């Protein structure tokens, strides 16, 4: 019996894409130069994720990357987030972050946006109330970075 089979009921949380992104994040590196950065921190578990953003001249996100330490959920969430933020305005990202927060807490969110669909593998976290903050940690850092300049928040 393989390890994965014996945790069948945890697979709603740990879908393949989550395990894969948690193990091998695509966007976990230091973005330099950058236009804004902020640190997200989860004091209960000690996890820290720093998000760095680059902007286009018209204020859209040109690039996003993160560094830090976290669990499979927070790293996968940061990685999927970095996938979807490119080309987005600040206003769009605020709306997306709010919708993702609802998705994480309730398992669904009413926002017609393909980006949200890309984040749906994380909806299983809604069945694990103590893990919701793992999924939202990078988004909180993103919002802080959008509000902060290069000095960071």
């Amino acid at each position, binding site marked *: 019996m*393989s*390890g*994965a089979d*014996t*945790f069948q*009921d*945890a697979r709603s*949380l*740990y879908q393949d894409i989550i*395990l894969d992104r*948690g*193990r091998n994040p695509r966007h976990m590196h230091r973005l330099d130069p950058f236009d804004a950065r902020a640190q997200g921190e989860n*004091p*209960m*578990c*000690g*996890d*820290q994720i720093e998000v760095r953003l680059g902007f286009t001249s018209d204020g859209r996100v040109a690039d996003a990357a993160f560094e830090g*330490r*976290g*669990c*499979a*959920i927070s790293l996968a969430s940061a990685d999927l987030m970095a996938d979807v933020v490119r080309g987005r305005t600040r206003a769009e990202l605020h709306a997306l972050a709010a919708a993702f927060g609802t998705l994480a807490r309730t398992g669904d969110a009413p926002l017609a946006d393909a980006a949200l669909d890309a984040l749906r593998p994380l909806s299983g976290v809604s069945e*694990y109330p103590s*893990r919701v903050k*793992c999924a939202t940690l990078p988004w909180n850092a993103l919002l802080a970075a959008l509000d902060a300049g290069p000095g960071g928040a």
Partner: protein
Amino acid sequence: MNAESKLSMLAPAFDVERVRRDFPILSQSVHGKKLVFLDSAASAQKPRAVIDAMTHAMETQYANVHRGLHWMSERTSDAYEGVRDKVAGLLNAPSREEIVFTGSSTGAINLVAHSYGRGILKPGQAVVVSEMEHHANIVPWQMLRDAHGIELRVLPITEAGELEMAALPGLLADGRVGLVAVTHMSNVLGTYNPVSRIAQLAHEAGALLLVDGSQAVVHRAVDVQALGADFYVFTGHKLYGPTGIGVLWARMALLDAMPPFMGGGDMISSVSFERSSWAKPPSKFEAGTPAILEAIGLGAAIDYVQAIGMDAISAHEAELTDHALSRLSAIEGLQVIGRAQDRGGVVSFTLEGAHAHDVATLLDRNGIAVRAGQHCAEPLIRRLGLTSTTRASFGIYTTREEIDFLADTLVRVKGFFQ
């Protein structure tokens, strides 16, 4: 029948299955799996005797204490004050009047930090804490430092997770230390600290010793006189009692000299608008209606563990801890945190390739409750070069089979994340 066999009949060998039947919650299921509760260091489960004592009081014998000139109040006062005797017995305190009820260990330490800290310690003096303290034994002293000009000094730990005792004389050398505040047993490393030796060194340097017994009092017999401590604190809910009740023991001369912490009813001998005078200890430190039912529950918990015997409990837990250390250490990629010679029933570990929170979530799905994170000891976790650990902690009701199940499940957790 000879005396020895009579004795063995009176004091039967520790029977964990019998103990488990005393804890109703242990028959509960979690996610359809049998509950395996390995988080007693955070808060222990409650035996029927504690539940019944509190319910019985509410159903048959309850009123406010120390106030009513009526039967119910007198009986409730007797029950409440009776617990003071039980606590004095548990700690081998010289006097029942040295037992102050608080809301928790945290409440007791804050009482000392405010009353002794601001009332007796002078700006410019220092308090020593260790690197392995729970936040409850760090933050009150930081607040005292910032409010009262007290220096905070930190006694480091060794790589094995024991106190760096060789560094203590140096910290005490300038004679400015008024108090050393250390845990009796680490809630992360399981380490038992050499409290008697610390007391001796502290006293030689003119300092007092506060011992945080939150973990230790659960696992071993404690004798505050033999330890040479000046303050000893613990909490009820880790000792199979209810939440909301903690204990401060302090030498009477200290309690006499210390100003009150909180003002209100019960802590005064007389009040006028011009001035009030204080009641004698312990009442001086018990302002307001106390946690009457919780104290009664704590009394039942003390009776319960003493009927089993602290020596039997510590022998059972020592065996469990040895078993856990050998089973867990055998798992490739699992690192036990802390290698103290003298340790209690708490085992923290990291698992390669799996974050503590992911480990805890998967264990939970198998019915196993553990704690994951920084365990309210952030400076210690940082000192160890970690961000979080998973912690399994054992109680009176923990079995070898549960530890085997933990170890087997951890092997599967590791496979899941590989």
